[in-house]
């Protein structure tokens, strides 16, 4: 049994208290340790992804307790890919936070950042539903701190909404877990997959309620309309690097839906008849549409980016809701793209804010460094709106292609194409108002509080864009890998047998119900 798989959880968990205890008043030391920790995470997660790329499933039994009784961490292709994505994103975001000085505008940024990473990475790696809840709470409580980092009234108000919405989500999660446990007597995902298929088709009331509750919880995380109301204000008011890191948090919801609804409540089950096609797909299409209309209607740049996150999550969920191996592969490709593109846009909107007093979409006089920022915004907007040649376009093609066999193909194509058009108009409007109209605006007095963004800020945004370009150039290889992932997801025999049959303490599972 390799111990490396728990390192992405343990490393930040140890680093965060160390930063608080040993380097509380020394921002430079905090920065050094934080960056070193994230660099180590990138290397570890790359190693893990390499190890499972041939299809093996890594299992870690905590304290050597065997699966249905003990807690397990499981690394397969999907979870290690998400872990790798998170740590790479975290590296860029952290460098930006250091370069722009955001980490020094309040206390404990780096400690909270590490705790946040611990929660996200743990949620990707865990093989147990209750553990998933615990890691959700870890990432949420760290995100509450990060969200109101640097204070300010507007931010605190948005923070209250964010926390309340997520508390209700957590309560729903507990209700769902309680009903699943009452029905099946286990919360281990692999064990659940075996037991749910044994549920008598005539007595599925409880498990149906549980599966819908669980879907609601994950949909809150994934900001699916009509459960998206927490997202626009909180992402817009959060400090930009934090909002950029939050781009992965909506994907935690998408990941959980993919994991739970391919393995436990898979589409062939009578228990979940209608859940995917009647409920999830229309909701996903509506969120895609609402998100992109929000892009067009936003009056501030940060809100615009927040709505584009909702729209791109809608695209991801459309693809997930089709629930075929092709569509899951397309969804995974799009998840990678939309995380990088969303983070890029949040960071660019902070670059814009560094150069002007606010982010209202109105003409303001041009300031230092606008041309480079405009170029970065242009690339980010092309990626997010899904125009060629970047990965947004390829991802959208993959989604459209995957929808071709569905009975709702006309609706999917219409919604995807129309909302793309709306988002192109929205981004074009924002870019031209902010960057082009600037030259026709009259200069009234000296702009206050503006400065040229630091080189490190530009470098980290450039790093994200380089990743986007790589994601487009190597689209064939990446899509090949995501197809392999979805193959593994739709044939979870390896996963289940590895989790259930690996010996440990109490390794002869007895029927306890």
């Amino acid at each position, binding site marked *: 049994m390799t111990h490396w798989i728990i390192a992405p959880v343990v490393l930040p968990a140890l680093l965060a208290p160390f930063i608080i205890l040993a380097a509380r008043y020394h921002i430079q030391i905090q920065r050094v340790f934080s960056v070193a920790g994230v660099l180590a995470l990138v290397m570890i997660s790359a190693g893990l992804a390499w190890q499972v790329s041939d299809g093996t499933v890594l299992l870690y039994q905590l304290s050597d307790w065997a699966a249905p009784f003990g807690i397990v961490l499981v690394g397969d292709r999907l979870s290690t890919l998400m872990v790798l994505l998170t740590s790479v994103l975290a590296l860029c975001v952290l460098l930006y936070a250091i370069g722009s000085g955001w980490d020094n505008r309040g206390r404990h940024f780096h400690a909270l950042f590490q705790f946040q990473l611990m929660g996200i990475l743990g949620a990707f790696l865990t093989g147990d539903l209750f553990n998933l809840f615990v890691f959700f709470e870890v990432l949420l409580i760290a995100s509450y701190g990060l969200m109101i980092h640097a204070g300010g*009234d507007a*931010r605190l108000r948005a923070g209250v909404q964010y926390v309340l919405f997520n*508390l209700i989500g957590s*309560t729903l999660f507990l209700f769902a877990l*309680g009903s699943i446990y009452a029905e099946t007597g286990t919360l281990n995902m692999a064990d659940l997959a075996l037991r749910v298929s044994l549920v008598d088709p005539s007595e599925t009331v409880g498990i149906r309620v549980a599966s819908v509750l669980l879907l609601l919880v994950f949909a809150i995380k994934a900001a699916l309309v009509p459960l998206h109301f927490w997202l626009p*204000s909180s992402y817009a008011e959060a400090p930009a690097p934090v909002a950029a890191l939050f781009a992965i948090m909506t994907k935690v919801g998408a990941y959980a839906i993919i994991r739970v609804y391919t393995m436990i409540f898979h589409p062939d089950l009578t228990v979940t008849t209608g859940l995917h096609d009647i409920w999830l797909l229309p909701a996903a299409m509506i969120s895609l549409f609402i998100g992109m209309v929000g892009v067009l209607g936003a009056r501030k740049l940060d809100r615009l980016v927040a709505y584009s996150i909702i729209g791109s999550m809608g695209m991801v969920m459309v693809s997930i809701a089709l629930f075929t191996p092709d569509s899951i592969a397309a969804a995974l490709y799009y998840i990678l793209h939309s995380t990088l593109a969303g983070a890029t846009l949040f960071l660019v909107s902070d670059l814009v*804010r560094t150069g002007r007093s*606010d982010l209202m979409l109105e003409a303001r006089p041009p300031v230092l460094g606008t041309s480079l920022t405009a170029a970065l915004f242009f690339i980010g907007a092309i990626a997010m709106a899904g125009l060629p040649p970047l990965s947004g376009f390829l991802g959208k093609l993959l989604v459209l292609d995957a929808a071709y066999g569905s009975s709702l193909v006309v609706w999917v194509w219409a919604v995807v194409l129309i909302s793309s058009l709306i988002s192109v108009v929205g981004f074009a409007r924002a870019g031209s108002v902010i960057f082009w109209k600037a030259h026709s605006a009259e200069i009234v007095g000296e702009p206050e509080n503006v400065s040229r963004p630091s080189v490190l800020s530009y470098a980290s945004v450039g790093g994200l864009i380089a990743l986007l370009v790589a994601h487009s150039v190597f689209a064939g290889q990446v899509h090949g890998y995501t197809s392999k992932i979805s193959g593994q997801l739709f044939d979870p025999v390896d996963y289940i047998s590895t989790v259930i049959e690996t010996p440990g303490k109490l390794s002869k599972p007895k029927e306890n119900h």
Partner: protein
Amino acid sequence: MEFLVASAIGAMTTAGLYLVLRLRTFPVILGMSLLTYAVNVFLFASGRLTIGAPPILRDDVSTYTDPLPQALVLTAIVISFGMTAVIVMISLGAFLGSDDDHVDDQAEPGPQSDGDRS
């Protein structure tokens, strides 16, 4: 006893939901606490209700109560307690800062809402 526990959960959930839908932070937080109480009892009941039975295996006992929900509920209590403390602090901060404890967004976010960069 099943009826008693079920109606207690139902009553707390109803009251909690009603309060959560209120406009100001204090009732909403009260509602959140009621909801977490309800869910704690619900989780506890998910291992079936048994009276006077031990949760650990012994040689001379034949009926047991399920120990797992008790462990789950303990975790849930700790987490919800911590979360309630956090939300109380954040909403106090928001209230003291803006002298207003409405939960919803202002109708017209003024241009000064961005002036909090420090």
